[in-house]
């Protein structure tokens, strides 16, 4: 509707931006609770899309691959936990590989400086992940980000070389049949087909 577009257009500059502190207070006060699937991105509280079957599969496959291949003393695999990026962004990435040991995180949340590798699994959220979250990861110096792209043919995008300007200097896309390899997490690789699961046919709409 025209009104809706106009509304968004005109509210853009005026919208109140929230800090990580505000966001934590909202959680403490119960304005946001565990049922709320939200993250703080660039001062805005955004709702995370519901996970479909394929999204869930990719998460499982990725977690399993990471756990099977890693040295636990060096890194910690974490899934769907908040990560403090900056004072106005606290995303909840699908998977992060953090510097160990685990005890580091007993009394504080992980921050960008702790991240070795971060993975987002994207279906309907692809553009948001690429255009809104990714630049923020780069700016916060997250060394390596993978976007597991479940749309269309599917594939895995690997971003390395973060720049303060908010972009990654090196991008590689792995397609079906390829093996995605990590740069930051040396020795870690996983078959793209395994991560994506079988190519979707009739289930495009169901997930």
């Amino acid at each position, binding site marked *: 509707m025209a*009104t809706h577009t*106009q*509304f*968004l257009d*005109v*509210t*853009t500059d*005026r*919208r*109140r931006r*929230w800090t990580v502190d*505000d966001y934590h*207070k*909202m959680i*403490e*006060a*119960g*304005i946001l609770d565990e049922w*709320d699937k*939200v993250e703080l*991105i*660039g001062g*805005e*509280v*955004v*709702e*995370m*899309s519901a996970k479909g079957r394929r999204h869930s599969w990719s998460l499982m496959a990725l977690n399993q691959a990471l756990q099977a291949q890693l040295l636990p003393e060096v890194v910690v695999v974490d899934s769907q936990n908040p990560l403090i990026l900056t004072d106005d962004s606290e995303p909840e990435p699908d998977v992060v590989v953090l510097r160990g040991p685990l005890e580091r995180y007993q009394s504080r949340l992980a921050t960008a400086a702790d991240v070795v590798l971060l993975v987002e699994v994207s279906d309907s959220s692809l*553009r*948001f992940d690429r*255009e*809104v979250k990714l*630049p923020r990861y780069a700016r916060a110096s997250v060394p390596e980000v993978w976007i597991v792209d479940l749309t269309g043919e599917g594939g895995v995008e690997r971003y390395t070389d973060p720049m303060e300007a*908010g972009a990654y200097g090196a991008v590689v896309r792995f397609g079906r049949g390829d093996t995605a390899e990590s740069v930051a997490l040396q020795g870690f690789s996983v078959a793209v087909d395994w991560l994506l699961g079988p190519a979707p046919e009739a289930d495009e709409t169901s997930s």
Partner: protein
Amino acid sequence: MATTAKTTEHTINLRRHWTVDDYHKMIEVGILDEQDKVELIGGVVVEMSAKGRRHNRTIVALVDAFSAVLPCGEALLAPQNSFLLSDDTEPEPDVAVIRGPLERYDHRPTTAADVLLLVEVADSSLRFDRNVKLPRYARAGVPEVWIADLTGEGGVERYTEPAAEGAYGSVARFDRGQEVVSVVLAEVSMSVDQLLGQMTGADGADAVRDAQEGD
């Protein structure tokens, strides 16, 4: 920067929509405090623009003009009062005239049903007031809204006959040299020039001279 525009575009559908309850809790726990000049409009907490000299002067002129004519006790003047419009909207219009007596409001907030006439003074906020707030006032059934437009030549827009779909059925614009008359409050009539003051401020000396020559 391009990044900002993109953020907006893609965040649109994902943005958390706040309710009036959420908003009140934010105030209670101090996420928002008295220093924060904000209102809740359509589930979005928006910052109100800082009031310039002309904006302030217009509010004073409105308060002065209304208080001179309002029937004592029956109608009350409520400048910068917040109104509960719907479950996701609680604006703070510049000036409102609400039903009396005052005791009505001892135990409940003011709502759209209490409003007789409401005025927004608009400079940089003109588009926001017209395109975002006005439709919400119409939907909530606010019977009459004035927008005192401080941009350009200046003027006062009067909106009446609110329709549930979010528009006003009747719109009149009063320019400099004219008197703006209320529909809902029969006794209210005031000079546009007096409300808006001389054309000065950021427009500088040229505007003053233009205005004088125009007379």
